[in-house]
């Protein structure tokens, strides 16, 4: 499809949009030092530790997918200071609100106590350096993934902050998020009215495929959407997380969306065959997904033909299920424009603002 064939209004988000995935990160571990105690400051210094330039292989700095040309020119890989997000995203796009996601703790080393200290530091840094400086900002808090009790404690410490709207979890895990060992974390999030955000990438060295590490970045990159997030939501639904926690809402971030219908058709069919195994699952998996899941718009993996784009969106009621995300600074291609061009005016309003407003209870 030639983009020149559609008017610019149809491929822009207009004013007052809600951006559900804007990335920020500390420029270095020194930024987090004020939020760490003496032991952990020495742990970092004595161990010669530093932040991984590629975030554990997730975003190689020079890879074309890691930053748009504009973000790269501005040195935002991603933004490290609130002024940068203000000018490049909030003001530039005339946003009503943006949700910050910091994945610095995702590729943490294997020390569970350090992970707890690091996630606390990231959260305190988010509150002090970002949320307190612009009331258009909301943020996901991060929690330790290796210690459910520590994760619960962190949610209890910070989960009631009015600008914290989500608990951010990686899709690469030792055990899938539906597993009973994680239930206290999900319960704490639900009890605090927080959405759980499942975001691409995660633990360093956690092979993305069932057969191990991949030689290519392309395969690693697409595993987030084509394999890992699908295993996570299959787990959450099958293992009864939503039956147990009827208020639990889960947003899928930077994991695509066009794969959803094929997964749910398979899931519904299999459930009809083996429902005896999961008696707590009393309705179709697709109905549970529709109630409890929303997906963000970047990356938008869609066909080139606008007729097929529209068909692909109709297979899962995209106007209801999707929430706009720039995923700044990442560059996943032109699918996002094809998506916006295919939405009706009513759907576009819901996708760029209304759905997120309702899902996160942002109010009018």
């Amino acid at each position, binding site marked *: 499809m030639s983009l020149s064939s559609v008017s610019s209004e149809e491929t822009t988000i207009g004013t007052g949009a809600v951006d559900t995935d804007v990335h920020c990160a500390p420029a270095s571990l020194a930024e987090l030092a004020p939020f760490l105690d003496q032991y952990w400051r020495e742990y970092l210094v004595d161990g010669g530790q530093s932040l991984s330039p590629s975030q554990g292989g997730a975003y190689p700095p020079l890879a074309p997918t890691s930053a748009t040309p504009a973000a790269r020119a501005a040195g935002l890989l991603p933004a490290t200071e609130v002024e940068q997000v203000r000018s490049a995203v909030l003001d530039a796009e005339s946003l009503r609100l943006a949700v910050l996601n910091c994945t610095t703790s995702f590729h943490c080393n294997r020390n569970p106590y350090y992970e707890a200290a690091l996630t606390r530091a990231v959260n305190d840094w988010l509150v002090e350096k970002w949320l307190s400086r612009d009331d258009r900002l909301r943020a996901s808090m991060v929690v330790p993934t290796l210690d459910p009790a520590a994760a619960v404690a962190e949610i209890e410490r910070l989960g009631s902050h009015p600008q914290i709207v989500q608990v951010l979890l990686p899709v690469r895990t030792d055990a899938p998020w539906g597993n009973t060992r994680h239930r206290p974390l999900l319960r704490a999030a639900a009890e605090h009215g927080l959405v759980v955000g499942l975001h691409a990438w995660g633990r360093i060295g956690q092979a993305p495929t069932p*057969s191990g590490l991949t030689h290519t970045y392309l395969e690693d990159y697409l595993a987030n959407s084509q394999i890992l997030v699908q295993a996570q939501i299959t787990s959450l639904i099958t*293992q009864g997380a939503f039956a147990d926690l009827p208020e639990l809402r889960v947003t899928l971030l930077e994991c695509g969306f066009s794969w959803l219908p*094929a997964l749910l058709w398979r899931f519904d069919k299999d459930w009809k065959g083996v429902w005896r195994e999961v008696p707590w699952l009393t309705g179709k998996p697709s109905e549970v997904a529709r109630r409890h899941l929303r997906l963000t718009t970047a990356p938008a993996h869609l066909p080139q033909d606008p007729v097929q784009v529209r068909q692909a969106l109709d297979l899962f009621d995209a106007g209801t299920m999707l929430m706009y995300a720039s995923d700044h600074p990442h560059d996943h291609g032109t699918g996002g424009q094809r998506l916006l061009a295919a939405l009706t005016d009513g759907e576009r309003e819901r996708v760029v603002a209304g759905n997120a407003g309702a899902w996160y209870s942002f109010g009018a």
Partner: protein
Amino acid sequence: MTSTLPSGTSSPGAAAARAGYTIVDTDIHPSAPAADIRARLSGAHRERWELFGGRVPNPPEFYPRVRNAGFRLDSWPEAGGIPGSDLGTTQAQLLDEFGVDHGVLIPLQGHTFGAEEPRYSAALCGALNDWLAEEWLAPEPRLRSSIAIPTESPDLAADEIARRAGDPRFVQVLLPTGGETGFGSRRYWPIYRAAVEAGLPVAAHTGGIEQHRGAGWPSFYLEEHVWNGNMMAALVTNLLCEGVFEDFPSLQVICVEGGIVWAAPLMWALDEAWPRLRADVPHLRKPPSEYLREHLWFTTQPIEEPDDPRHLTTALEHVGMTDRIMFASDYPHWDFDSPRLAPRLFPSGAREQIMGANACRLYGLPARASEGTR
């Protein structure tokens, strides 16, 4: 479409109700009794078989099937043994009952045998292939078979492929979807080289070594079964990204029992990412979807089933590979698809292709002679 015939329906007159087109069933599971494998092993391997059996766990040990051990209730042979161990039962319940013209055997024991100690693995796969040739292919001309191979010992696998290549009853090389590492890895390339030299396609059937990295281990069979589609997508992506299709331009790969319509969003994702990541995969010279459309085939069972059947038609159009989709019943498993009822789900314009014509083209099988059936 998980229809199951009432027990004991194998009416002699079933052939009268044959469809007016060729039916090829591309996924039939035979299962060799342990004693029949033992009888075909030589001294040291036979002793090992008796004392230690196999070391590779079967997926049902992790994720037990919910009822009847995962088999069709009526498929247990009257003479004893497990479903798929008796040719006569398979003939009566499948080939005769539905007027199947040709059937392709997929011996899932190859999935575990293939990952044993290399020499033992080769002996086990050789014994299994001998059993298939002697007990199934010789007495039943409607059947063809896959070649079970020592998957994790690719040099020995290539030997086994070459050994069977002269027997036209063996029509494909069997791979599982779960291996010690990704099947695109160069260590497996001797398998693809041997398959291409023999002019045989490779059939990747769901199963094999059970591993759940990435997101971690599921807890339930429901999750594992849904996951089969993701496993197949991972396999296909790995073959592509490692350059297998570039180095083996004539290789054909059949995705068996992993669903179909996930392939469209996978191709959209690959084609969206590839222009930005070309430097990461310099060995790929054209959009990824072009490789997949030239190299992949799919079997139908268990095809995705949306509430609105028109959605399946749309999704299959998005895949755009109706000329490479082949009917499969998965006999004798619980989620068997009837050759009589399944066609109703397929787009009417592609029904005869899917039920038989595509498979005849791929495997070089004769179409049903015009016999005035309709």
